[in-house]
């Protein structure tokens, strides 16, 4: 495969297939699959990747999930037991020891010393890689033969193989860094010829504040025998960061001295990819431009409107206050707000831009009894969630295809900042100014 995919999407749940298929299949180039999803439903994942979308994919082994509070891996069963989720259990069984004996049998977190023995590390790395290379192909051996016959690269072989990895914070990096390095070295010695190896670097944002730690990490990772670094900064919302943090982010990418993929990135990361500073960027469909290392619970899903000029998802009320002046006609909306295929479709269906835009805010109410009375809560309708997700996917595609020179992007961001700061306040729009400053200061 000569073309290097730059735009990846994280496959979160099966219901998200609606954002990844049909016309939307053309809006992205590759998929990241969570290992627990693959362990739980390998046949469904193989059919989706190999038959429905036929795109490069990569399995995130999520090995960091076993090093901390194991409650993150558990859920309540119908008979009242708080146990490890079935999908995670299957994954643990595939990974074997030391995770199986620690987590599944003793309900203990894994620690660096569990990988002290070379033999243990070697076998563990082998099983994690084998899980990635065989899970999907094993489910579709008939397809594999077809691809061999056709002489094309088998899409059921992962685009990158990811070495096991563990989370490092400013407190724990000295404990985990040597383990992470050994995992990559061991994986490099085991991967099949012709495979691409990724070292996943999962760090706390606090690490960016310490030059000493960053320097130690970049020095270690820049020498590793891998093709790419998959970078995941825990809960790093690019639109919430100070200019110092954003500059530290760019410095880290540059100092790693090798291709870097941002596993959860927003428009700033996409600009960095468009300028060749990042190899690729991944996000979730309709969300997922940042992600905490450990799940923090679900909450009520709400359709958020991705504002194309602010490059940010906004709650419906906020989006309405920005967009409202352009709702006097459908043409004005399409000229000034968004021309994505989804917006063109909904704007052309009714000749009232207010009603059309209102579809993004459709909700249904549920009234529930609380301690002091009744409370009515609004949920987005599934149609509103679908529209918001599709609009997001089309806009992400547009951002990746953007051929504007950097100075024009800086001008657009600065204009969006100036135009909306009175209306929304500085907190909501300041990222435009910070991103413009970061992009202005780049030496490509």
């Amino acid at each position, binding site marked *: 495969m000569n073309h290097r995919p730059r735009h990846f999407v994280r496959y979160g749940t099966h219901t998200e297939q609606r954002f990844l298929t049909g016309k939307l299949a053309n809006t992205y180039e590759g998929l990241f699959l969570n290992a627990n999803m693959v362990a739980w439903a390998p046949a469904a994942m193989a059919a989706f990747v190999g038959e429905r979308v036929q795109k490069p994919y990569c399995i995130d082994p999520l090995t960091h999930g076993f090093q901390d509070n194991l409650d993150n891996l558990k859920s309540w069963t119908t008979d009242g037991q708080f146990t490890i989720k079935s999908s995670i259990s299957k994954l643990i069984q595939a990974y074997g020891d030391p995770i199986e004996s620690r987590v599944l049998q003793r309900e203990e977190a894994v620690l660096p010393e569990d990988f002290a023995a070379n033999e243990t590390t070697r076998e563990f790395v082998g099983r994690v890689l084998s899980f990635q290379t065989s899970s999907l192909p094993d489910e579709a051996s008939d397809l594999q033969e077809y691809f061999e016959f056709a002489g094309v690269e088998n899409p059921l072989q992962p685009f990158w193989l990811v070495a096991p990895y563990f989370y490092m914070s400013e407190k724990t990096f000295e404990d985990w860094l040597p383990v992470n390095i050994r995992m990559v070295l061991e994986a490099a010695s085991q991967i099949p010829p012709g495979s691409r190896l990724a070292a996943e670097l999962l760090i706390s944002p606090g690490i960016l504040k310490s030059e000493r730690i960053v320097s130690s990490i970049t020095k270690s990772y820049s020498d590793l025998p891998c093709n790419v670094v998959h970078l995941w900064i825990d809960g790093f919302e690019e639109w919430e960061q100070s200019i110092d943090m954003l500059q530290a982010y760019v410095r880290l990418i540059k100092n790693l001295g090798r291709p870097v993929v941002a596993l959860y990135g927003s428009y700033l990361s996409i600009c960095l990819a468009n300028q060749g500073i990042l190899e690729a960027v991944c996000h979730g469909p309709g969300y997922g431009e940042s992600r905490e290392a450990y799940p923090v619970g679900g909450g009520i899903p709400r359709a958020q409107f991705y504002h194309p000029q602010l490059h940010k998802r906004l709650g419906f009320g906020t989006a309405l206050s920005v967009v409202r002046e352009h709702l006097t006609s459908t043409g004005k909306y399409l000229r000034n707000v968004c021309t994505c295929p989804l917006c063109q479709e909904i704007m052309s269906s009714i000749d009232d831009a207010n009603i059309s835009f209102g579809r993004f*805010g459709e909700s249904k109410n549920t009234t529930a009894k609380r301690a002091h009375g009744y409370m*009515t809560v609004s949920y987005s309708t599934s149609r509103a969630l679908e529209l918001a997700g599709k609009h997001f996917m089309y806009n992400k595609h547009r951002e990746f295809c953007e051929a504007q020179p950097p100075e024009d992007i800086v001008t657009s961001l600065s204009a969006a900042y100036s135009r909306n700061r009175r209306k929304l306040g500085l907190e909501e729009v300041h990222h435009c100014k910070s991103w413009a400053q970061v992009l202005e200061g780049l030496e490509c």
Partner: protein
Amino acid sequence: MACLFRSIDILVLNNNTFSSVHHPASIALELKLHDWRKGLRQANHHLFAVDYSCVCIPRRTITEYMLTSFESSPIGLVMFTPEDKQPFVVVSEAKPSDEKWPVAVKWLEQTIDVWEGGVTVEP
């Protein structure tokens, strides 16, 4: 009362207790015990759907800053003292919303229809 993914604590219809309007109006009341600034932000949001929006707090001393904040906004400030004969005292009068959005008004009307038609309560 749900309104654009937020909740109006009390919705008053066809009543002019909280403003000097002389025509049927919809008025949103945002109840706050302490954080009137948050109430101000939330009450602002309701202006998409109602004619007037107010923050309602228990009786307390009103600072100059607080009064200016309300007077310079369309949001009204009301104090509530349940034991008084006239429990609601208008400290700063609400101004008519110039943010009303027909779609949000319609959604609010539909919500009211649901309430009037009987509410199905989830346990």
